[in-house]
Protein backbone atom coordinates (compact mmCIF):
# COMPACT_ATOMS: atom_id res chain seq x y z
CA UNK A 1 0.00 0.00 0.00
CA UNK A 2 2.77 2.47 0.99
CA UNK A 3 4.87 1.29 -1.96
CA UNK A 4 2.07 2.47 -4.18
CA UNK A 5 2.14 5.88 -2.44
CA UNK A 6 5.93 6.14 -2.97
CA UNK A 7 5.56 5.34 -6.63
CA UNK A 8 2.88 7.99 -7.02
CA UNK A 9 5.04 10.55 -5.18
CA UNK A 10 7.97 9.91 -7.56
CA UNK A 11 5.67 10.33 -10.54
CA UNK A 12 4.40 13.63 -9.07
CA UNK A 13 7.98 14.94 -8.72
CA UNK A 14 8.82 14.02 -12.32
CA UNK A 15 5.59 15.63 -13.56
CA UNK A 16 6.32 18.79 -11.55
CA UNK A 17 9.88 18.96 -12.92
CA UNK A 18 8.70 18.47 -16.51
CA UNK A 19 5.99 21.10 -15.99
CA UNK A 20 8.59 23.62 -14.79
CA UNK A 21 10.84 22.86 -17.78
CA UNK A 22 7.98 23.05 -20.29
CA UNK A 23 6.64 26.31 -18.82
CA UNK A 24 10.14 27.82 -18.81
CA UNK A 25 10.61 26.82 -22.44
CA UNK A 26 7.22 28.23 -23.42
CA UNK A 27 7.88 31.51 -21.59
CA UNK A 28 11.25 31.73 -23.25
CA UNK A 29 9.77 30.99 -26.67
CA UNK A 30 7.12 33.69 -26.40
CA UNK A 31 9.72 36.05 -24.94
CA UNK A 32 7.76 36.67 -21.77
CA UNK A 33 10.52 38.93 -20.51
CA UNK A 34 10.06 41.30 -23.43
CA UNK A 35 6.30 41.21 -22.94
CA UNK A 36 6.66 42.08 -19.27
CA UNK A 37 9.25 44.70 -20.06
CA UNK A 38 6.92 46.43 -22.47
CA UNK A 39 3.72 46.15 -20.49
CA UNK A 40 5.14 46.93 -17.03
CA UNK A 41 7.49 49.49 -15.64
CA UNK A 42 10.29 46.96 -15.29
CA UNK A 43 13.85 48.03 -14.52
CA UNK A 44 16.07 48.54 -17.52
CA UNK A 45 18.91 46.56 -16.00
CA UNK A 46 17.01 43.22 -16.08
CA UNK A 47 19.49 40.80 -17.54
CA UNK A 48 18.78 37.47 -15.94
CA UNK A 49 15.61 37.18 -17.95
CA UNK A 50 15.72 33.40 -18.25
CA UNK A 51 16.10 33.04 -14.52
CA UNK A 52 13.24 35.43 -13.89
CA UNK A 53 11.10 33.50 -16.29
CA UNK A 54 11.88 30.25 -14.49
CA UNK A 55 11.03 31.89 -11.15
CA UNK A 56 7.76 33.15 -12.61
CA UNK A 57 7.03 29.63 -13.84
CA UNK A 58 7.67 27.99 -10.45
CA UNK A 59 4.53 28.77 -8.38
CA UNK A 60 2.07 26.84 -10.54
CA UNK A 61 3.82 23.43 -10.66
CA UNK A 62 5.10 23.76 -7.09
CA UNK A 63 1.62 24.61 -5.88
CA UNK A 64 0.26 21.66 -7.79
CA UNK A 65 2.99 19.43 -6.33
CA UNK A 66 2.21 20.60 -2.78
CA UNK A 67 -1.48 19.95 -3.37
CA UNK A 68 -0.79 16.44 -4.69
CA UNK A 69 1.55 15.60 -1.81
CA UNK A 70 -0.96 16.76 0.77
CA UNK A 71 -3.68 14.69 -0.91
CA UNK A 72 -1.36 11.71 -0.97
CA UNK A 73 -0.41 11.98 2.69
CA UNK A 74 -4.07 12.32 3.66
CA UNK A 75 -4.88 9.20 1.63
CA UNK A 76 -2.02 7.25 3.24
CA UNK A 77 -3.16 8.34 6.70
CA UNK A 78 -6.75 7.36 5.94
CA UNK A 79 -5.64 3.95 4.74
CA UNK A 80 -3.57 3.42 7.87
CA UNK A 81 -6.49 4.47 10.06
CA UNK A 82 -8.79 2.10 8.15
CA UNK A 83 -6.28 -0.75 8.57
CA UNK A 84 -6.00 -0.01 12.29
CA UNK A 85 -9.80 0.04 12.63
CA UNK A 86 -10.00 -3.28 10.78
CA UNK A 87 -7.33 -4.79 13.03
CA UNK A 88 -9.07 -3.56 16.19
CA UNK A 89 -12.33 -4.99 14.87
CA UNK A 90 -10.68 -8.34 14.10
CA UNK A 91 -9.19 -8.46 17.61
CA UNK A 92 -12.57 -7.70 19.12
CA UNK A 93 -14.22 -10.48 17.10
CA UNK A 94 -11.37 -12.84 18.03
CA UNK A 95 -11.76 -12.14 21.74
CA UNK A 96 -15.54 -12.48 21.48
CA UNK A 97 -14.99 -15.84 19.79
CA UNK A 98 -12.72 -16.96 22.63
CA UNK A 99 -15.19 -15.68 25.19
CA UNK A 100 -18.02 -17.55 23.45
CA UNK A 101 -15.89 -20.73 23.37
CA UNK A 102 -15.08 -20.43 27.08
CA UNK A 103 -18.69 -19.78 28.03
CA UNK A 104 -19.90 -22.66 25.90
CA UNK A 105 -17.42 -24.99 27.60
CA UNK A 106 -18.63 -23.91 31.04
CA UNK A 107 -22.32 -24.22 30.12
CA UNK A 108 -21.85 -27.63 28.47
CA UNK A 109 -20.12 -28.93 31.59
CA UNK A 110 -22.76 -27.65 34.00
CA UNK A 111 -25.51 -29.06 31.78
CA UNK A 112 -24.16 -32.58 32.40
CA UNK A 113 -25.65 -32.79 35.92
CA UNK A 114 -28.82 -30.92 34.89
CA UNK A 115 -29.59 -33.12 31.91
CA UNK A 116 -28.20 -36.36 33.32
CA UNK A 117 -29.69 -36.16 36.81
CA UNK A 118 -33.10 -34.93 35.63
CA UNK A 119 -33.24 -37.83 33.21
CA UNK A 120 -32.20 -40.31 35.91
CA UNK A 121 -34.92 -39.01 38.21
CA UNK A 122 -37.39 -39.15 35.34
CA UNK A 123 -36.51 -42.79 34.67
CA UNK A 124 -36.95 -43.58 38.36
CA UNK A 125 -40.35 -41.85 38.58
CA UNK A 126 -43.44 -44.02 37.92
CA UNK A 127 -45.44 -43.19 34.81
CA UNK A 128 -48.49 -42.13 36.78
CA UNK A 129 -46.56 -39.73 39.05
CA UNK A 130 -47.61 -36.08 38.54
CA UNK A 131 -44.02 -34.92 39.14
CA UNK A 132 -42.84 -36.51 35.86
CA UNK A 133 -43.95 -33.52 33.76
CA UNK A 134 -41.73 -31.19 35.84
CA UNK A 135 -38.71 -33.40 35.25
CA UNK A 136 -39.54 -33.62 31.54
CA UNK A 137 -39.52 -29.81 31.41
CA UNK A 138 -36.04 -29.72 32.97
CA UNK A 139 -34.75 -32.23 30.40
CA UNK A 140 -36.34 -30.34 27.50
CA UNK A 141 -34.99 -27.00 28.77
CA UNK A 142 -31.48 -28.44 29.13
CA UNK A 143 -31.67 -29.87 25.60
CA UNK A 144 -32.65 -26.46 24.23
CA UNK A 145 -29.70 -24.83 25.99
CA UNK A 146 -27.42 -27.55 24.59
CA UNK A 147 -28.59 -26.74 21.03
CA UNK A 148 -28.16 -23.01 21.56
CA UNK A 149 -24.64 -23.50 22.90
CA UNK A 150 -23.76 -25.71 19.92
CA UNK A 151 -24.67 -22.78 17.66
CA UNK A 152 -22.47 -20.39 19.64
CA UNK A 153 -19.59 -22.88 19.57
CA UNK A 154 -19.99 -23.23 15.84
CA UNK A 155 -19.60 -19.47 15.60
CA UNK A 156 -16.57 -19.47 17.92
CA UNK A 157 -14.91 -22.10 15.73
CA UNK A 158 -11.96 -20.58 13.94
CA UNK A 159 -10.16 -23.33 12.09
CA UNK A 160 -13.21 -25.35 11.04
CA UNK A 161 -13.25 -28.97 9.99
CA UNK A 162 -12.82 -30.47 6.57
CA UNK A 163 -14.55 -28.16 4.10
CA UNK A 164 -17.90 -29.28 2.75
CA UNK A 165 -19.54 -28.36 -0.51
CA UNK A 166 -23.10 -28.16 -1.73
CA UNK A 167 -25.12 -27.67 -4.88
CA UNK A 168 -26.82 -24.27 -5.02
CA UNK A 169 -29.80 -25.62 -6.95
CA UNK A 170 -30.56 -28.41 -4.49
CA UNK A 171 -30.34 -26.00 -1.55
CA UNK A 172 -32.84 -23.67 -3.21
CA UNK A 173 -35.05 -26.65 -4.09
CA UNK A 174 -35.16 -27.49 -0.40
CA UNK A 175 -36.01 -24.05 0.93
CA UNK A 176 -37.82 -22.19 -1.84
CA UNK A 177 -41.30 -23.42 -0.86
CA UNK A 178 -40.62 -22.68 2.79
CA UNK A 179 -39.51 -19.13 1.93
CA UNK A 180 -42.63 -18.54 -0.18
CA UNK A 181 -44.95 -19.89 2.51
CA UNK A 182 -43.35 -17.88 5.30
CA UNK A 183 -43.24 -14.63 3.34
CA UNK A 184 -45.97 -12.25 4.58
CA UNK A 185 -48.66 -11.54 1.95
CA UNK A 186 -47.94 -7.80 1.72
CA UNK A 187 -44.39 -8.53 0.52
CA UNK A 188 -43.84 -9.50 -3.11
CA UNK A 189 -41.18 -12.20 -3.12
CA UNK A 190 -39.12 -12.84 -6.25
CA UNK A 191 -36.61 -15.68 -6.37
CA UNK A 192 -34.29 -15.91 -9.38
CA UNK A 193 -31.61 -18.56 -9.49
CA UNK A 194 -31.53 -19.75 -13.06
CA UNK A 195 -27.80 -19.47 -13.60
CA UNK A 196 -26.65 -20.67 -10.19
CA UNK A 197 -26.34 -24.35 -10.95
CA UNK A 198 -22.82 -24.94 -9.63
CA UNK A 199 -21.39 -26.27 -6.39
CA UNK A 200 -20.02 -23.90 -3.78
CA UNK A 201 -17.42 -24.29 -1.10
CA UNK A 202 -19.69 -24.40 1.97
CA UNK A 203 -22.05 -26.94 3.46
CA UNK A 204 -25.73 -27.13 2.50
CA UNK A 205 -26.65 -26.27 6.12
CA UNK A 206 -24.56 -23.11 6.00
CA UNK A 207 -25.92 -22.00 2.62
CA UNK A 208 -29.48 -22.64 3.81
CA UNK A 209 -28.88 -20.67 6.99
CA UNK A 210 -27.37 -17.78 4.98
CA UNK A 211 -30.39 -17.54 2.67
CA UNK A 212 -32.92 -18.01 5.48
CA UNK A 213 -31.16 -15.49 7.74
CA UNK A 214 -30.94 -12.80 5.07
CA UNK A 215 -34.54 -13.50 4.06
CA UNK A 216 -35.65 -13.24 7.72
CA UNK A 217 -33.79 -9.96 8.22
CA UNK A 218 -35.36 -8.50 5.06
CA UNK A 219 -38.86 -9.57 6.12
CA UNK A 220 -38.35 -8.06 9.57
CA UNK A 221 -36.99 -4.86 8.05
CA UNK A 222 -40.22 -4.46 6.03
CA UNK A 223 -42.35 -5.44 9.00
CA UNK A 224 -45.99 -4.50 8.57
CA UNK A 225 -45.56 -2.63 5.30
CA UNK A 226 -45.88 -3.41 1.61
CA UNK A 227 -42.68 -4.00 -0.23
CA UNK A 228 -40.60 -6.14 -2.50
CA UNK A 229 -38.06 -8.78 -1.54
CA UNK A 230 -35.76 -10.17 -4.21
CA UNK A 231 -33.45 -13.15 -3.84
CA UNK A 232 -31.18 -13.55 -6.83
CA UNK A 233 -28.46 -16.17 -7.20
CA UNK A 234 -26.15 -15.89 -10.19
CA UNK A 235 -22.72 -17.03 -11.25
CA UNK A 236 -20.08 -14.33 -11.64
CA UNK A 237 -16.38 -14.09 -12.14
CA UNK A 238 -14.39 -12.12 -9.55
CA UNK A 239 -13.48 -8.73 -10.96
CA UNK A 240 -16.35 -8.92 -13.47
CA UNK A 241 -17.95 -5.72 -12.24
CA UNK A 242 -17.95 -3.19 -9.43
CA UNK A 243 -19.49 -5.51 -6.86
CA UNK A 244 -16.90 -8.22 -7.29
CA UNK A 245 -13.88 -6.06 -7.99
CA UNK A 246 -11.92 -7.00 -4.87
CA UNK A 247 -12.41 -10.71 -5.42
CA UNK A 248 -9.79 -12.91 -7.04
CA UNK A 249 -10.56 -13.90 -10.61
CA UNK A 250 -12.27 -17.16 -9.64
CA UNK A 251 -15.86 -18.01 -10.27
CA UNK A 252 -18.33 -17.17 -7.53
CA UNK A 253 -21.98 -17.64 -6.80
CA UNK A 254 -23.38 -14.23 -6.02
CA UNK A 255 -26.39 -14.23 -3.76
CA UNK A 256 -28.22 -10.91 -3.64
CA UNK A 257 -31.03 -10.37 -1.15
CA UNK A 258 -32.64 -6.96 -1.47
CA UNK A 259 -35.58 -5.39 0.28
CA UNK A 260 -37.49 -2.13 0.05
CA UNK A 261 -37.45 -1.60 3.80
CA UNK A 262 -36.33 1.48 5.72
CA UNK A 263 -32.60 0.94 5.08
CA UNK A 264 -29.86 0.87 7.70
CA UNK A 265 -28.72 4.14 9.31
CA UNK A 266 -24.98 4.91 9.32
CA UNK A 267 -24.42 4.30 13.06
CA UNK A 268 -26.01 0.85 12.82
CA UNK A 269 -24.38 -0.06 9.49
CA UNK A 270 -20.88 -0.09 11.05
CA UNK A 271 -21.96 -2.67 13.59
CA UNK A 272 -24.29 -5.10 11.81
CA UNK A 273 -21.62 -7.81 11.48
CA UNK A 274 -20.61 -7.64 15.15
CA UNK A 275 -21.58 -10.67 17.24
CA UNK A 276 -24.40 -10.02 19.71
CA UNK A 277 -25.30 -6.72 18.02
CA UNK A 278 -29.01 -6.56 17.27
CA UNK A 279 -31.61 -3.91 16.63
CA UNK A 280 -34.39 -6.38 17.26
CA UNK A 281 -36.39 -6.23 20.45
CA UNK A 282 -35.48 -8.54 23.33
CA UNK A 283 -36.19 -12.10 22.23
CA UNK A 284 -36.30 -11.08 18.55
CA UNK A 285 -32.75 -12.03 17.70
CA UNK A 286 -29.44 -13.11 19.21
CA UNK A 287 -27.30 -10.75 17.14
CA UNK A 288 -25.37 -13.74 15.82
CA UNK A 289 -27.04 -14.17 12.42
CA UNK A 290 -24.98 -11.78 10.30
CA UNK A 291 -21.81 -12.37 12.35
CA UNK A 292 -22.17 -16.08 11.69
CA UNK A 293 -22.83 -15.55 7.97
CA UNK A 294 -19.77 -13.32 7.67
CA UNK A 295 -17.61 -15.87 9.51
CA UNK A 296 -18.86 -18.76 7.34
CA UNK A 297 -18.59 -16.88 4.05
CA UNK A 298 -15.10 -15.53 4.78
CA UNK A 299 -13.89 -18.92 6.00
CA UNK A 300 -14.95 -20.27 2.59
CA UNK A 301 -12.94 -17.55 0.82
CA UNK A 302 -15.92 -15.36 -0.02
CA UNK A 303 -17.23 -12.05 1.24
CA UNK A 304 -20.40 -10.27 2.22
CA UNK A 305 -21.21 -6.66 1.37
CA UNK A 306 -24.11 -4.42 2.14
CA UNK A 307 -25.60 -1.56 0.11
CA UNK A 308 -28.23 0.47 1.85
CA UNK A 309 -30.08 3.73 1.54
CA UNK A 310 -32.21 5.08 4.35
CA UNK A 311 -35.81 5.13 3.16
CA UNK A 312 -35.11 3.07 0.05
CA UNK A 313 -34.01 -0.37 1.24
CA UNK A 314 -31.07 -2.67 1.77
CA UNK A 315 -29.23 -5.10 -0.45
CA UNK A 316 -27.00 -7.81 1.01
CA UNK A 317 -24.51 -9.23 -1.48
CA UNK A 318 -22.78 -12.51 -0.72
CA UNK A 319 -20.03 -13.97 -2.89
CA UNK A 320 -19.19 -17.63 -2.31
CA UNK A 321 -16.39 -19.33 -4.26
CA UNK A 322 -17.43 -22.08 -6.65
CA UNK A 323 -15.55 -25.31 -6.87
CA UNK A 324 -12.92 -25.35 -9.60
CA UNK A 325 -14.29 -27.12 -12.64
CA UNK A 326 -17.87 -27.01 -11.33
CA UNK A 327 -20.55 -26.34 -13.93
Amino acid at each position, binding site marked *: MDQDANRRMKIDFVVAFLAIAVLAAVFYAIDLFDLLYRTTRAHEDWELDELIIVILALPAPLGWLAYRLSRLSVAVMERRLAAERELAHARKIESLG*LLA*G*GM*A*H*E*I*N*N*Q*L*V*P*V*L*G*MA*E*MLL*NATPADNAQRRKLELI*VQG*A*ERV*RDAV*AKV*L*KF*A*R*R*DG*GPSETCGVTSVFDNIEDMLRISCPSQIVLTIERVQAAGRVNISADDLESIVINLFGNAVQAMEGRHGELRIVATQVKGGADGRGRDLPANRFVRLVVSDTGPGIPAGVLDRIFEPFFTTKEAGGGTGLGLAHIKAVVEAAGGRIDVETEVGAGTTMIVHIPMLQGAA
Partner: protein
Amino acid sequence: MARILLIDDELLVLESIKFMLEDCGHAVDTARHGAQALYEMTTKPYDLVISDVVMPELDGLQFLREARRKYPDARFLVISGGGRRSVDDYLDEASAIGADAVLSKPFKMDELMTAVAAALA
Protein backbone atom coordinates in the same frame (compact mmCIF):
# COMPACT_ATOMS: atom_id res chain seq x y z
CA MET B 1 -20.95 -54.62 34.05
CA ALA B 2 -17.66 -52.93 33.27
CA ARG B 3 -14.92 -51.49 35.51
CA ILE B 4 -14.65 -47.88 34.46
CA LEU B 5 -12.16 -45.13 35.34
CA LEU B 6 -13.80 -41.72 34.94
CA ILE B 7 -11.63 -38.58 34.65
CA ASP B 8 -12.98 -35.04 34.89
CA ASP B 9 -11.75 -31.96 36.78
CA GLU B 10 -15.31 -30.71 37.46
CA LEU B 11 -16.67 -32.35 40.61
CA LEU B 12 -20.32 -31.80 39.63
CA VAL B 13 -19.72 -33.42 36.26
CA LEU B 14 -17.66 -36.24 37.75
CA GLU B 15 -20.31 -37.14 40.31
CA SER B 16 -23.18 -36.88 37.81
CA ILE B 17 -21.57 -39.13 35.21
CA LYS B 18 -20.59 -41.56 37.99
CA PHE B 19 -24.29 -41.75 39.03
CA MET B 20 -25.36 -42.31 35.41
CA LEU B 21 -22.81 -45.10 34.89
CA GLU B 22 -23.55 -46.77 38.22
CA ASP B 23 -27.26 -46.59 37.46
CA CYS B 24 -26.53 -48.79 34.45
CA GLY B 25 -24.65 -51.27 36.59
CA HIS B 26 -21.03 -50.25 36.00
CA ALA B 27 -18.35 -50.00 38.73
CA VAL B 28 -16.77 -46.56 38.62
CA ASP B 29 -13.54 -45.08 40.01
CA THR B 30 -12.75 -41.41 39.51
CA ALA B 31 -9.73 -39.19 38.91
CA ARG B 32 -9.49 -35.38 38.70
CA HIS B 33 -6.85 -35.15 35.97
CA GLY B 34 -4.71 -37.21 33.64
CA ALA B 35 -1.73 -37.61 35.97
CA GLN B 36 -3.94 -39.04 38.73
CA ALA B 37 -5.61 -41.34 36.18
CA LEU B 38 -2.25 -42.70 35.02
CA TYR B 39 -1.49 -43.57 38.65
CA GLU B 40 -4.92 -45.20 39.13
CA MET B 41 -4.34 -47.31 36.03
CA THR B 42 -1.23 -48.79 37.61
CA THR B 43 -3.22 -49.94 40.65
CA LYS B 44 -5.84 -52.05 38.88
CA PRO B 45 -7.07 -52.96 35.41
CA TYR B 46 -10.04 -51.13 33.86
CA ASP B 47 -12.31 -52.23 31.03
CA LEU B 48 -12.85 -48.62 29.98
CA VAL B 49 -11.37 -45.19 30.70
CA ILE B 50 -13.66 -42.19 30.16
CA SER B 51 -11.75 -38.91 30.00
CA ASP B 52 -12.59 -35.22 29.67
CA VAL B 53 -10.24 -33.11 27.50
CA VAL B 54 -9.71 -29.71 29.17
CA MET B 55 -8.12 -30.45 32.56
CA PRO B 56 -5.22 -29.17 34.67
CA GLU B 57 -1.95 -31.10 35.20
CA LEU B 58 -2.21 -33.51 32.26
CA ASP B 59 -5.06 -32.75 29.87
CA GLY B 60 -7.19 -35.43 28.24
CA LEU B 61 -5.33 -35.52 24.92
CA GLN B 62 -1.88 -35.69 26.55
CA PHE B 63 -3.23 -38.35 28.91
CA LEU B 64 -4.65 -40.35 26.00
CA ARG B 65 -1.31 -40.30 24.14
CA GLU B 66 0.55 -41.42 27.25
CA ALA B 67 -2.00 -44.03 28.32
CA ARG B 68 -2.38 -45.42 24.79
CA ARG B 69 1.41 -45.88 24.66
CA LYS B 70 1.51 -47.66 28.05
CA TYR B 71 -1.70 -49.66 27.64
CA PRO B 72 -2.18 -50.46 23.93
CA ASP B 73 -5.15 -52.74 24.66
CA ALA B 74 -7.06 -50.34 26.95
CA ARG B 75 -10.35 -48.83 25.80
CA PHE B 76 -10.89 -45.07 25.86
CA LEU B 77 -13.99 -42.90 25.56
CA VAL B 78 -13.21 -39.17 25.30
CA ILE B 79 -15.84 -36.60 26.27
CA SER B 80 -15.67 -32.82 25.76
CA GLY B 81 -17.72 -29.66 26.09
CA GLY B 82 -15.31 -27.61 23.97
CA GLY B 83 -13.06 -24.80 25.12
CA ARG B 84 -10.56 -22.66 23.24
CA ARG B 85 -11.24 -24.96 20.32
CA SER B 86 -14.57 -26.41 19.25
CA VAL B 87 -15.96 -29.68 20.61
CA ASP B 88 -15.54 -31.28 17.18
CA ASP B 89 -11.88 -30.25 17.01
CA TYR B 90 -11.08 -31.80 20.37
CA LEU B 91 -13.02 -34.97 19.62
CA ASP B 92 -11.55 -35.33 16.11
CA GLU B 93 -8.06 -35.08 17.57
CA ALA B 94 -8.96 -37.59 20.29
CA SER B 95 -10.17 -40.06 17.62
CA ALA B 96 -6.99 -39.48 15.62
CA ILE B 97 -4.75 -40.33 18.58
CA GLY B 98 -6.58 -43.48 19.55
CA ALA B 99 -9.89 -42.88 21.33
CA ASP B 100 -12.23 -45.83 20.73
CA ALA B 101 -15.28 -43.56 20.96
CA VAL B 102 -16.02 -39.87 21.54
CA LEU B 103 -19.01 -37.98 22.94
CA SER B 104 -19.83 -34.30 23.27
CA LYS B 105 -21.10 -32.87 26.57
CA PRO B 106 -23.80 -32.62 27.72
CA PHE B 107 -25.36 -35.98 26.88
CA LYS B 108 -28.40 -38.01 27.78
CA MET B 109 -28.25 -41.39 29.44
CA ASP B 110 -28.85 -43.36 26.23
CA GLU B 111 -26.19 -41.34 24.37
CA LEU B 112 -23.67 -42.14 27.13
CA MET B 113 -24.56 -45.84 27.10
CA THR B 114 -24.30 -46.01 23.29
CA ALA B 115 -20.85 -44.41 23.46
CA VAL B 116 -19.74 -46.76 26.28
CA ALA B 117 -20.94 -49.75 24.25
CA ALA B 118 -19.14 -48.46 21.14
CA ALA B 119 -15.89 -47.99 23.08
CA LEU B 120 -16.11 -51.47 24.58
CA ALA B 121 -17.10 -53.17 21.31
